[in-house]
């Protein structure tokens, strides 16, 4: 074994000099949230970096819904799940159909639709929220889960179509041609040739849409208001309305709410990074 040279030690030290601040910068807000979740109220408010008596009591309060703000915890959690799942499924359906149509069937006007989708992708989300809110009112969908589902599908689809179209274009045309020679109908090609080959991209897009819907705050906050219809993030926002907000419970609920997307992200990381960043910016 050879000892590291002075130069190597110097390089490592410089790397650490960047790495440590990056680690702290990334983790402090998340650690702070976790710290609150495991602290009794007195410890949380005293600015300690580790509680004297770490406890899971806050989790117990949340899971047993033992606080005024948590009356509908399970209903709201379930709302988040249903809406995220619906947005994932609908986005996948709409975007896959559109990408297949544009890329494989070369439908007339496909290019135009793709550009329209890209245009939507570039409208800042908070800007579209204003007219969208009023439109949902006109459609009579306010306070109905469908308003949030459709709004999120509208926002997720353009990017989904874009990424899936890019991925479709990479599939060899010969596959479709061979299937046609064997007498396959368009739908059979879609189901038996196209979908299996697109699986990795579909997983990436499905995850993207689910996470987008799960993490959404603004649209949920505008479109839903009834306590039993709102999603968990809106409920978290409502905690703030009180003067003496139970911050330790807010952070505990927030921590519980942040776990699924983090888990989903890490489970599908391979697909996500490859599939999503490739489409985000073509260099």
């Amino acid at each position, binding site marked *: 074994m050879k000892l590291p040279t002075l130069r190597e030690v110097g390089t490592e030290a410089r790397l650490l000099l960047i790495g440590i601040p990056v680690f702290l910068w990334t983790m402090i807000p998340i650690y702070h949230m976790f710290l609150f979740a495991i602290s009794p109220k007195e410890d949380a408010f005293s600015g300690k970096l580790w509680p004297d008596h770490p406890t899971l009591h806050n989790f117990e309060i949340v899971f047993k819904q033992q606080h005024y703000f948590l009356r509908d915890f399970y209903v709201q959690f379930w709302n988040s799940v249903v809406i995220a799942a619906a947005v994932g499924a609908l986005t996948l359906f709409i975007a896959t159909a559109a990408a297949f149509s544009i890329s494989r069937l070369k439908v007339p006007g496909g290019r135009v639709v793709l550009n329209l989708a890209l245009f939507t992708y570039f409208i800042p989300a908070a800007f579209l929220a204003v007219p969208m809110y009023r439109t949902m009112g006109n459609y009579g969908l306010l306070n109905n889960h469908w308003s949030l589902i459709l709004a999120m599908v509208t926002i997720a689809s353009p990017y989904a179509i874009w990424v899936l179209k890019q991925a479709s274009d990479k599939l060899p045309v010969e596959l479709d041609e061979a299937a046609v020679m064997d007498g396959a109908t368009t739908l059979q090609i879609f189901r038996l040739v196209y979908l299996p080959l697109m699986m990795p991209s579909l997983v990436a897009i499905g995850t993207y849409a689910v996470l987008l819907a799960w993490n959404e705050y603004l649209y949920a906050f505008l479109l839903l208001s009834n306590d039993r219809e709102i999603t968990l993030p809106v409920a978290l926002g409502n905690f703030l309305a009180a003067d003496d907000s139970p911050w330790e419970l807010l952070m505990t*609920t927030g921590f519980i709410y942040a776990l699924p997307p983090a888990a989903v992200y890490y489970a599908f990381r391979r697909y996500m990074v490859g599939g999503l960043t490739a489409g985000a910016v073509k260099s």
Partner: protein
Amino acid sequence: MAITLSGDQAIPGPPLSSRLTPAQVWGIVLLAPYLLVFLAFVVYPVCYGLWLARAPANYVALYNDPIFARAAINTLIFLVIGINIKMLIALFLSGFFAVQRPWIKWLSVIFILPWAVPSIPTILSVRFMLNPEWGVINHLIFSFTGDDGPNWLNDPTVALSMAIAVHIWKSLPFWTLILITGRLAISHDLFEAAEVDGASWWQKFRYITWPSMQTLYVTCTLLSMIWTLGDFNSVYLLTGGGPADLTHVLATLGIRYLRLDQLSLAMASIVCAMPFVLPLVYFMMKRLSR
């Protein structure tokens, strides 16, 4: 293949369905769901919103509202200062994360967290950290200096800086990831050749890395501008637009008017951003749809 029957020419203009192949008919059917969504939730809302904002009186009202002017300036600060700081750090960190070390690989996995977890709990966590009485930051300041720390969210300049910091915290991982992809695409031979010639790290950056990444960097910066314009959470969840409505940006101002039931003002404030947004969108579409 379309089959032409004899005598077809006699009928002027065959029906649409016979001019399309079955594949094309399926193409239209499969494209229809997205078109419906697009018409119902993009075209109609946007046209309706523009129609609501059409009266010049709205723009006079905005012009006379000091909160609007402040929000416009804040938005500019957010874009010019916030995005450039963020993208420069991302560019720098993409170099750091491209270094091959097991621990750096681990750090890169953790580094994604802010982007992967929802905004609301983490931004509220930062908000509590900045609480002047109970927050951990002022506790630490007090224990080290014996003085009370600043009231972070009470001074508009400080509060806006904190909102920018939160925005950077949240979106830095994404842009770093994209720029790492760009960096890894550069041929390694170039660096090896430069190494042989004894180039310094700055020369390597200046003559190899930057020229290959310049276009990507500019595209990312512009795309980031568009998305930052739509970033409601960083400001709303941290400051709520306060103190005294002095930290609003256009994204939160529009929603503020909306909550005050002034929909035409809300739309008008967004229309005011359009001369700025549309060239960006046009440029991005040209870049991407090449």
